[in-house]
């Protein structure tokens, strides 16, 4: 249990701090209370001693020894008084509350005598504190406060009738009063106890509150995160932590979720590229094995064709053998190109002718499957710059797929072609983006809608992170990691060199927010509004020189249709919907070819009604 770690440590730390604080407070509090109580007792004892002395003085002047003795004994019997003694100059006890002591002579070295007789010459007067002493008679007895009060020789003493004291004498004797401190000590103990009880209860309450807060604020979310990391390390990359708070742990949870999502995406991509790599190896192996037999066929047939001039009945057949073998060669090449991701060899071509050629290749297959192929092609279609072999492969794939979707019962495939006009926005993908120091901003590790995103670093004071931009021109859609909506005061930078990507002094013509800009090599600047939600995007060179002419081809079948759940993954490699029948590569290759021609491929499908694949290819320069 985590509570036993951080929670306990934190609680212990807080309790220790409180303990020390209360301890120091209690120590000084008790000290000062002790002091003030004692001072009060001392003042009281002093007064008591002075009163007693004044009272006795009167009786002494009248030589009323009996009254003095009785008075001392009576006062000495009170609880608040322990003992009263009167000494003469020689140390002999003259009067005492304990009559048995009368006549005893105290040792001049005793504590009480030391005060005046300690320094050789006896002192003639004692002041305030020096009169007091606190002592215990034995180990178990309560503390005692002793107060000695010297009886000075006064004019009234030597002028009295008895003439007992000569005027030269300064001190006549000592009055020693001993008071028990039982009451004071009890009060001190009581306040000490109160403070200890207070400290213990404060500590108990505090540790309870701290441990509850720790559990609520730290323990639970950390437990939740711990559980999530266990799930993720166990391979469940779909697990997400519930983010309900906005503190650091909430941010941690959010960033954990982001990390897991990125991890899942990276794993998927790794998986895909792994599949592509093995596809590449497979293609290379197939290409190598197939090359020699293909060479024999191609060289022999082309040699025969050369020698068969004037024999029209074989020339046509040989021409087909040669051209189809060359097509085989191109297929092998494009398979390797696909694995190597190179771009096609483009020439001006007529799409309608390519569609016809593709249909011819599949003629037999379609007639066996009772599939009618209806073509509605626009004769005025402009010639497009394409790799004819690759585009033919696209149509062969689409027609073969349509035929498979129709199945054994037969049906119809419609192919239409027409010329359309499309704006660059929403069609053109930004495939390269450079900062001023020519670092590539396109981040192949992050994909938006399956396309590598454009990554930029945002900075707002100390806050910084990555922002990913949808690479489709015209979308200007940001995807942020842990970042509040973009607003003023935010600067975008190149993630590699931190060069600013902001367009200085320029504002969005739509909403007047700051704008960013980056360069597409050979294709000018792309600018966009920084404010989230404002879709302003400008690519001047493309907008001005954009040829909005596109050729659109629709291949429609009335087959089984594709379930909605399979549509998003349709163009991924190995995402076959045909089970054992397909390789799962057809549509991936098709997508790759169309993408390499800067075209788009989309699908509209309804289960039970049929599917339509729509290909749009730019007419180009």
């Amino acid at each position, binding site marked *: 249990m985590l509570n036993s770690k951080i929670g306990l440590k934190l609680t212990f730390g807080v309790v220790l701090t409180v303990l020390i604080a209360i301890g120091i407070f209690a120590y000084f509090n008790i000290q000062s209370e002790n002091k003030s109580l004692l001072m009060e007792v001392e003042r009281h004892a002093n007064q008591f001693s002075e009163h007693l002395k004044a009272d006795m003085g009167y009786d002494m002047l009248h030589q009323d020894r009996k009254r003095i003795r009785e008075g001392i004994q009576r006062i000495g019997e009170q609880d608040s008084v322990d003992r009263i003694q009167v000494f003469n100059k020689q140390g002999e006890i003259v009067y005492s509350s304990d009559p048995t002591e009368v006549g005893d002579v105290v040792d001049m070295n005793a504590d009480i005598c030391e005060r005046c007789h300690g320094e050789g010459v006896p002192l003639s007067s004692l002041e305030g504190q020096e009169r007091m002493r606190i002592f215990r008679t034995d180990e178990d007895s309560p503390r005692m406060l002793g107060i000695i009060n010297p009886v000075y020789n006064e004019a009234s003493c030597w002028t009295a009738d008895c003439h007992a004291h000569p005027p030269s004498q300064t001190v006549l004797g000592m009055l020693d009063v001993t008071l028990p401190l039982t009451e004071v000590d009890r009060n001190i103990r009581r306040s000490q106890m109160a403070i200890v009880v207070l400290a213990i209860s404060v500590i108990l309450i505090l540790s309870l509150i701290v441990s509850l807060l720790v559990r609520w604020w730290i323990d639970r979310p950390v437990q939740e995160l711990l559980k999530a990391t266990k799930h993720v390390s166990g391979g469940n990359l779909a697990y997400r932590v519930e983010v309900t708070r906005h503190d650091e742990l909430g941010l941690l949870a959010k960033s954990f979720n982001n990390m897991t999502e990125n991890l899942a995406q990276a794993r998927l991509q790794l998986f895909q590229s792994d599949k592509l790599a093995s596809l590449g190896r497979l293609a290379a192996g197939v*290409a*190598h094995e197939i090359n020699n037999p293909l*060479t024999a*066929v191609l060289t022999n047939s082309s040699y025969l064709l050369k020698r068969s001039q004037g024999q029209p009945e074989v020339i046509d057949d040989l021409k087909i053998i040669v051209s189809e073998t060359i097509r085989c060669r191109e297929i092998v090449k494009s398979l390797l190109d696909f694995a190597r991701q190179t771009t096609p*060899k*483009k020439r001006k071509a007529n799409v309608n002718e390519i569609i016809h050629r593709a249909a011819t290749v599949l003629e037999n297959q379609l007639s066996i499957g009772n599939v009618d192929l209806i073509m509605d092609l626009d004769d005025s279609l402009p010639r497009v710059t394409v790799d004819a072999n690759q585009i033919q492969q696209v149509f062969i794939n689409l027609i073969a797929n349509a035929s498979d979707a129709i199945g054994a019962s037969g049906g119809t495939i419609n192919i239409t072609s027409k010329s359309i006009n499309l704006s660059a926005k929403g069609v053109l993908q930004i495939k390269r983006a450079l900062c001023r120091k020519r670092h590539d901003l396109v981040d192949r590790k992050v994909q938006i809608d399956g396309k590598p995103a454009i990554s930029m670093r945002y900075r707002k004071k100390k806050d910084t992170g990555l922002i990913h931009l949808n690479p489709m021109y015209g979308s200007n859609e940001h995807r942020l990691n842990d970042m509040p909506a973009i607003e003023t005061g935010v600067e975008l930078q190149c993630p590699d060199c931190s060069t600013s990507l902001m367009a200085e002094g320029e504002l969005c013509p739509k909403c007047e927010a700051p704008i960013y800009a980056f360069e597409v090599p050979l294709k000018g600047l792309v600018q966009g509004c920084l404010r989230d939600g404002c879709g302003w995007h400008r690519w001047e060179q493309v907008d001005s020189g954009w040829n909005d002419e596109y050729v659109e081809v629709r291949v429609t079948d009335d087959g089984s249709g594709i379930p909605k759940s399979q549509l998003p993954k349709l163009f991924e490699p190995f995402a076959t919907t045909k089970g054992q029948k397909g390789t799962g590569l057809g549509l991936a290759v098709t997508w790759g070819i169309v993408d390499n021609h800067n075209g788009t491929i989309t699908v509209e499908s309804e289960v039970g009604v049929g599917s339509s694949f729509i290909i749009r290819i730019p007419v180009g320069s």
Partner: protein
Amino acid sequence: MKQLRDILVIDDEPTITQVVVKVCSAEGMTVTAANDVTEALECLEKCNFRLALCDIMMHGLDGFQFLEELDERGIHTPVVMMTGYSTMENAVKSLASTGAVDYIPKPFTADELLTVINRSLRCGKLLEDAESASLQRVGSLSYVPCPAKYYGLGYVSWVLMEDEGIARIGVSDLFLKAAQGIKEFELSLPGESLVQGVPCAVATSPDGSEHEIMCPMGGEILEVNEQAQSNPSLVEKDPYFRGWLYRILPSNPAADLRWLSS
């Protein structure tokens, strides 16, 4: 004096050697077939050949080892390598070694084979003439070699590294002379990618044969020389300067340069 024959073809697939023999014999050439490198070396002991046609991937000794053996024995027969599309990297590497003058990707048609053979025969002749001319210190070279700082892909094409990581690509004079002039160039378009060793242009000579020009360096085409396209004779007159074909943004120049000769 050893007998002089035209072609020695080496491949471990008999169907390939058979068809090469058939096609070349029909053109009146004398052809000898060998099924492996050892056999080919034996043939070279007995006869001189004007050209050897050698597969790269073979059982036993391969095409590279064949080139090494020729070099060791001081045999200067020009060699054309044959290779499948999937092992194009090997073909590029073979041009970096001595002896190989050209290569032809498999599978090929009879015409493509004859075009490469005829061109390579003429190329071998030009090289031989140039060598004897320099030995006898008479006359001038019948072709202009690549200028300094240019890198050549064998005798086929050249690349010049310019500032800011941009490269210029063209075709070598020896290739143009061996092709006996060009009447038309078919060039790729800006924005397309080129791969080293894969054809980047097709040159048609006056006799109608189409010569594929192997690309010396991979990358993206930035600019196509319109003048070369509209006026092919410019390339023939000034192949290294005004007659360039493409300006490209190389994708991996350091790796590509390893297989080029300067």
